[in-house]
């Protein structure tokens, strides 16, 4: 062992000396003069200046403001008690990664609250079709990259809520979902890899009470081998009944008097 240390020290010393010695070699290298290139200086006029188009600038400013806005939540999020789900016991060295993944599995209340505060999953830009169409003609480059928002953060800006072909706003849909989530007791242990989508059509009175509920694919419930479907359908019916009357928006009755609820337990059963 000592042999190698001393050898190493020797070589280190040699190297240091060598670099000291060789440096002057580099220093003394004669500099060859570069060939001269003639340059014409061109004036940059107003035409070639590329500012942001006025409308684009507006949007960018607004987005910046939005970013700041979102840090402050409208309501303090209530205590989140994540469900302790020992789905998989991680191997010792994978424990940390797994526990982070486990935290992401949330129960209904948790999801709801996350919608009201900024999270790292949030897409930061707003999609506003009106403003985009105004932009397209005016500016050719440097439009702020605006991406469509995937999640339901629009609850903070109810005024500019987007009507996505549904007849009710996303926030209203959100409110209905939240009620049903609380009422739905999902039968535990159903297989999650089968097609177990239960669709229930409801007709409602203006006060949100249910006049009729009907399972589409009703016939499937009594077919042999469809035991799981029947169990899930019955649980969905119980959920609807328990939630009767639903708290519906005060306006737009014509839009939501016919409701179809698609019960899909896949995400919850997968765990």
């Amino acid at each position, binding site marked *: 062992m000592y042999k*190698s*240390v001393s*050898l*190493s020290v020797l*070589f280190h010393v*040699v*190297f240091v000396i060598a670099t000291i010695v*060789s440096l002057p070699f*580099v220093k003394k290298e004669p500099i060859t003069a570069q060939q001269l290139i003639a340059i014409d200086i061109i004036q940059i006029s107003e035409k070639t200046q590329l500012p942001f188009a006025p409308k684009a600038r507006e949007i960018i400013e607004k987005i910046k403001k939005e970013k700041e806005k979102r840090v402050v939540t409208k309501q303090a999020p209530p205590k989140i008690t994540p469900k302790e789900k020992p789905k998989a016991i991680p191997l010792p060295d994978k424990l940390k990664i797994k526990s982070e993944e486990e935290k992401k599995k949330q129960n209904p209340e948790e999801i709801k609250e996350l919608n009201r505060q900024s999270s790292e999953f949030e897409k930061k830009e707003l999609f506003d079709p009106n403003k985009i169409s105004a932009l397209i003609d005016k500016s050719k480059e440097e439009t702020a990259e605006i991406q469509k928002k995937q999640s339901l953060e629009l609850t903070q800006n109810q005024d500019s809520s987007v009507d996505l072909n549904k007849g009710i706003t996303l926030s209203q849909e959100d409110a209905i979902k939240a009620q049903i989530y609380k009422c739905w007791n999902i039968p535990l242990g159903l297989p999650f890899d089968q097609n177990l989508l239960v669709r229930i059509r409801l007709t409602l009175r203006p006060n949100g009470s249910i006049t009729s509920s009907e399972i589409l694919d009703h016939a499937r419930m009594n077919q042999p081998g469809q035991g799981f479907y029947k169990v899930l359908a019955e649980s969905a019916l119980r959920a609807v009944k328990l939630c009767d009357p639903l708290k519906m928006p005060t306006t737009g009755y014509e839009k939501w008097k016919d409701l179809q609820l698609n019960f899909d337990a896949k995400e919850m059963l997968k765990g």
Partner: protein
Amino acid sequence: MLTKSLKNTFLVIVLGILISACSTTATKTTKSTSAGDVYTGTDTVQYLTTGVADRVFFGTNSKNLTSAAKVTLDKQAAYIKSSKISVVIEGHADERGTREYNLALGERRANVVRDYLMSKGIAKSSIKVISYGKERPASKESSALAWSQNRRSVTVKSK
């Protein structure tokens, strides 16, 4: 110019290679036949007769005979030959494995000992073999030491 820079780079490379410390691995003389956790004590050892230990020990999940084991077995062979006794070789395993696999492992260990004794001239007919898996530990504790004492093959005079 080219030659100068080449020369420098060459010098640097050569010296760079030279200064990378030569590492020497401390050569531990390890017995290639052992798994490293073979019991080498005498606490649980009993004796067939003076100086002849009745058992040999194994590494985790291993059936290999250490050189110490072979020394013991040589003595056993000599004793068996001279006293003309018949023996039963018991194979055992520690508790840190599944029950059924341990039964097979015990049988494997017992047979390794039997084969060795036979190679030393003991007749097949005077050796019987049985495995107890992890059912009959020599030490009832749950520690690495106890487990190493339980990974054994015991030679017993047959009645």
